[in-house]
């Protein structure tokens, strides 16, 4: 019966950032509607592996539990995705969990996504509104454009697009699709547009936009359905114009 059935997990583990990864198997008691995180929580409650030996609980990252924070991303049955929205009933068993090794592994399934946040700083993914006096209200944004921009703003810096990208790896310094698409978002904002050139120049530096090799895995893998490759192509157009302006000068600021 249902209370006796278990879910089979094969989990890739790693004790420290520099130690060798190894696999450990678990049989977790099945509960209806369970997701990968609730299974990991069950292992944490009762850290006994498939051989019946007591082991250390699995380390992983999580926060919102509703697929908006991006923290619990990992590779589940070969696909990078959020473990909170990975429903056990919809997964083939054994369920294989691995960390996203594009990022430095901290321990077990936990990775360090700092590089993504550094990239957001590098491309100036914000709108500067501070002044020494009240600058007043900014220009209005048309409602249709706001709705369009909302789709780009859904990015939760989860790292799935970087994991899927063949050009984001230890041999390259490509910042990846996510921070690039944020440049398009902030350049589309009527106030953000005032610093458009700064952001375009930032992504024209080493490790920037031109590292994209158009494999388009990012747009296929993005859990939020963000049109990443459209953003990249649109930025290709913008940077083409920006590079002409930089080289030849322009009649416009």
């Amino acid at each position, binding site marked *: 019966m249902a209370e006796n059935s278990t879910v089979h997990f094969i989990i890739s583990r790693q004790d420290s950032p520099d130690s060798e990864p190894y696999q450990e198997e678990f049989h977790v008691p099945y509960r209806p509607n369970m997701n990968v995180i609730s299974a990991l929580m069950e292992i944490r409650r009762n850290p006994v592996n498939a051989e019946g030996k007591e082991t250390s609980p699995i380390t992983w990252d999580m926060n919102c539990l509703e697929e908006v924070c991006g923290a619990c991303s990992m590779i589940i049955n070969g696909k990078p995705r959020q473990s909170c929205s990975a429903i056990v009933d919809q997964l083939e068993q054994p369920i294989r969990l691995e960390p996203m090794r594009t990022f430095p592994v901290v321990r077990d399934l936990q990775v360090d996504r700092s590089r993504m946040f550094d990239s957001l700083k590098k491309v100036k993914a914000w709108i500067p509104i501070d002044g020494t006096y009240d600058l007043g209200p900014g220009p209005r944004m048309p409602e249709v454009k706001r709705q369009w921009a909302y789709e780009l703003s859904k990015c939760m810096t989860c790292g799935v697009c970087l994991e899927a990208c063949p050009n984001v790896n230890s041999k390259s310094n490509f910042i990846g699709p996510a921070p690039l698409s944020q440049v398009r978002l902030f350049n589309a904002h009527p106030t953000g547009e005032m610093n458009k050139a700064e952001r375009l120049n930032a992504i024209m530096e080493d*490790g920037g936009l*031109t590292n994209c090799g158009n*494999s388009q895995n990012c747009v296929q893998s993005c859990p939020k359905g963000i049109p990443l490759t459209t953003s990249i192509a649109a930025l290709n*157009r913008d940077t083409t114009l920006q*590079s002409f302006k930089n080289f030849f000068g322009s009649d416009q600021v």
Partner: protein
Amino acid sequence: MAGNREYFYRRLHSLLGVIPVGLFLIQHLVVNHFATKGADSFNKAAHFMESLPFRYVLEIFVIFLPLLFHAIYGIYIAFTAKNNASRYNFFRNWMFVLQRFTGIVTLIFVVWHVWETRIAAAFGAEVNFNMMENILSNPFMLWFYIIGVVSTIFHFANGLWSFAVSWGITVTPRSQLISTYVTIGIFIALSIVGIRAIFAFVS
């Protein structure tokens, strides 16, 4: 600015692949196609190309230097990728892998082809119908040429697709889909031209 040349090099790589290297490829395939009209016709066309004014200037600036940059920077690009098409089994990802694979195949083919024809010519050999007939009478070389030519044309056609993306010409998914069909058409059309020319030397 120094140390931030990557944007420039990548864009230059993309541009040179189409202008002039891609245009030269089309011209070369068209001239080869004279072989289908017989040995005399081919020899006349080849002789005309050989006797173009400013031949060395044209060869150096339209063919060798752009090709050399495209090839060397291309090797760097190909080997910085970590191909993952087995895990991410998408059409464009396969095109990404094939673009890098055909780039390397094309480089091997072109190096051999230049050695066997242009460099041989510099040492006194005459490039004409008979020369190609001799080369292609060897079944191994026939297959080497077929694979080399098709690989080159694939690399050009698919490169044209990514050229349009890289320069911001095709931005939307629909425009990229249409350019996929257009470049597949270019691949098929040029392959027919190339293969027909090869078989014209085999009798």
